């Protein structure tokens, strides 16, 4: 701080000879942890920003989130109640139609949904297909075990197919909602659905500061990389760096949260959140909501009519 100290002599000398600049041929893979942190920050950032697709002119984008969200919820409930694969498949095709009408690239949309499926359902679905979990008519025998025929049963396959279809359709609906709605829109929808205001406010701020912290992570990674000279080969170094960064990040988050609280107090916040009301809903929003409710009722009713 004080300007009294003189610059040390070594700082004014060139050290060009000490670290030759040509390639030696030996490569160091970037610190895996650093890469993971930075990559994670980037992925989260991409995953939570849908501004680009939400800004396109399309069917779902033109709807107010306060109507879109309940409509999607009604369809989700219907999907949960349906027990026939063809009905679910029809609903799935319907989501594809919505995606197309909302100018979302179909291939990317399908990929996004089906990439999730194995993660969510694989563990549950795979065992259900076998005769020892779901007894019934064996359609694909795999051998004998203690005198019993073991294999994939028709009942097992059906229930597995049902789960997969249900999950795929549900995820499609949720992805459609998030891709076509801006975050502020989603927040105002939650508010309209009588989710407590303070909770919505906290959610909004958590989202907002996630970005500040993501920036901090990226900055710390870049700063550390800029200062790294010798290859940190040992695990110990990486782990120490991680805990150091984690600690610094926590300290930052804590100091930040205190200042945010002060900034809110300074502008008259007294624990009760008051927020802007959006403009009134339009006819299309009402139509959409009604259409979703009718479709949900029809689908569930039709499904029941097909029998169990």
């Amino acid at each position, binding site marked *: *701080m004080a300007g009294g100290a003189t610059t040390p002599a070594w700082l004014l000398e060139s050290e060009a000879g000490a670290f030759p600049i040509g390639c030696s041929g030996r490569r160091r893979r970037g610190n895996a942890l650093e890469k993971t942190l930075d990559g994670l920050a980037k992925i989260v950032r991409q995953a939570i920003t849908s501004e680009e697709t939400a800004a396109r002119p399309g069917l779902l984008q033109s709807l107010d989130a306060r109507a879109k969200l309940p409509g999607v919820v009604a369809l989700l409930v219907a999907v949960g109640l349906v027990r026939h694969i063809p009905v679910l498949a029809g609903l799935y095709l319907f989501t594809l139609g919505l995606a197309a009408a909302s100018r979302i690239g179909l291939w990317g949309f399908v990929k996004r949904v089906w990439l999730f499926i194995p993660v969510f359902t694989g563990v549950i679905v795979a065992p259900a297909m076998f005769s020892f979990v779901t007894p019934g008519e064996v359609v694909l025998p795999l051998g004998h075990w203690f005198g019993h025929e073991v294999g994939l049963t028709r009942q097992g396959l059906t229930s597995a197919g049902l789960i997969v279809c249900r999950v795929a359709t549900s995820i499609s609906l949720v992805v459609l909602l998030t891709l076509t709605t801006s975050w502020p829109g989603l*927040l105002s929808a939650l508010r309209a659905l009588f989710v407590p205001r303070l909770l919505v406010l906290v959610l909004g701020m958590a989202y907002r500061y996630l970005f500040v912290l993501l920036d901090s992570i990226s900055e710390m990674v870049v700063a550390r990389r800029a200062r790294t000279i010798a290859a940190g080969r040992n695990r110990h170094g990486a782990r120490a760096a991680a805990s150091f960064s984690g600690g610094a990040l926590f300290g930052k988050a804590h100091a930040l949260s205190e200042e945010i609280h002060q900034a809110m*107090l300074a502008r008259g*916040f007294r624990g009760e959140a008051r927020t802007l009301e959006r403009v009134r809903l339009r006819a299309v929003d009402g139509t959409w909501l009604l259409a979703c409710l009718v479709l949900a009722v029809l689908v569930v009713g039709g499904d029941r009519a097909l029998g169990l």
Partner: protein
Amino acid sequence: MRLGSEPLLVAESLSYSYLERFAALEDVSLEVQRGERLALLGANGCGKSTLLKILAGLIFPDRGSYRAFGEEVSEPKLEDEQFSRGFRARVGFVFQNTDAQVFSPTVREEIAFGPLQLGLAPGEIEARTNDVVALLEIGDLIERAPYQLSAGQKKRVAIASVLVMNPELLLFDEPTAGLDPRSRHWLLELMSELGAAGKTIVFATHELEQLEWVADRCLVLSEAHRLLAEGTPNEILSDRELLLRANLIHEHTHQHGALLHSHPHERGHHATGTAG
């Protein structure tokens, strides 16, 4: 509210330390008159932000007393519904750390936050929002999210969100830091305009240029967190020895007329450098 001739703000021997360990202010007293523009000067870490936060009623001194608008300001007092509303409506604070201040999902909601908490009518809020948005030239940012803004843009949003409440007392913590020269000039002009309109302004700064233009009076804090000097910008700026002691300038800062400027010197020319 008792008025009369009492200054707008009266602080007596304020002391504050963080976590009861890190001293930030020691025995600082000050008075601010209605309509005055006061600059807080001091090196990094001398306690400017801390002093401003006490004046804004966000933290409370360990020792000493603080009165504003003729009323004592203390933690229990601010728990009173009416007092806290009246005080918050009168005091606007632009934080040094803009990221802490801009916390809403969109710029529009950010600007509306203060007026909403004060319970202004929706029509009034919208009219005021449109006015400050025009004043701060942030019309094209209004639906954007704060994380999509540059540091300077965030600063403008922060200032807009405070001005929209039309406070009587404006506290600015290093308002021009991080702004480009054009924006900086524009902000200083805005501050002097607000001052001319009768607002009381207290601001922390490191910038000595144009000080006499935006401030009527300066307080200098020392690195020991005490009040070192007080005077008009001219008195302070012409006291070279004082500025050096407060670490506000370094030895190679020169004054040409009213204009301060500094430039690097080659090593080993200290003796001749100070003569300029």
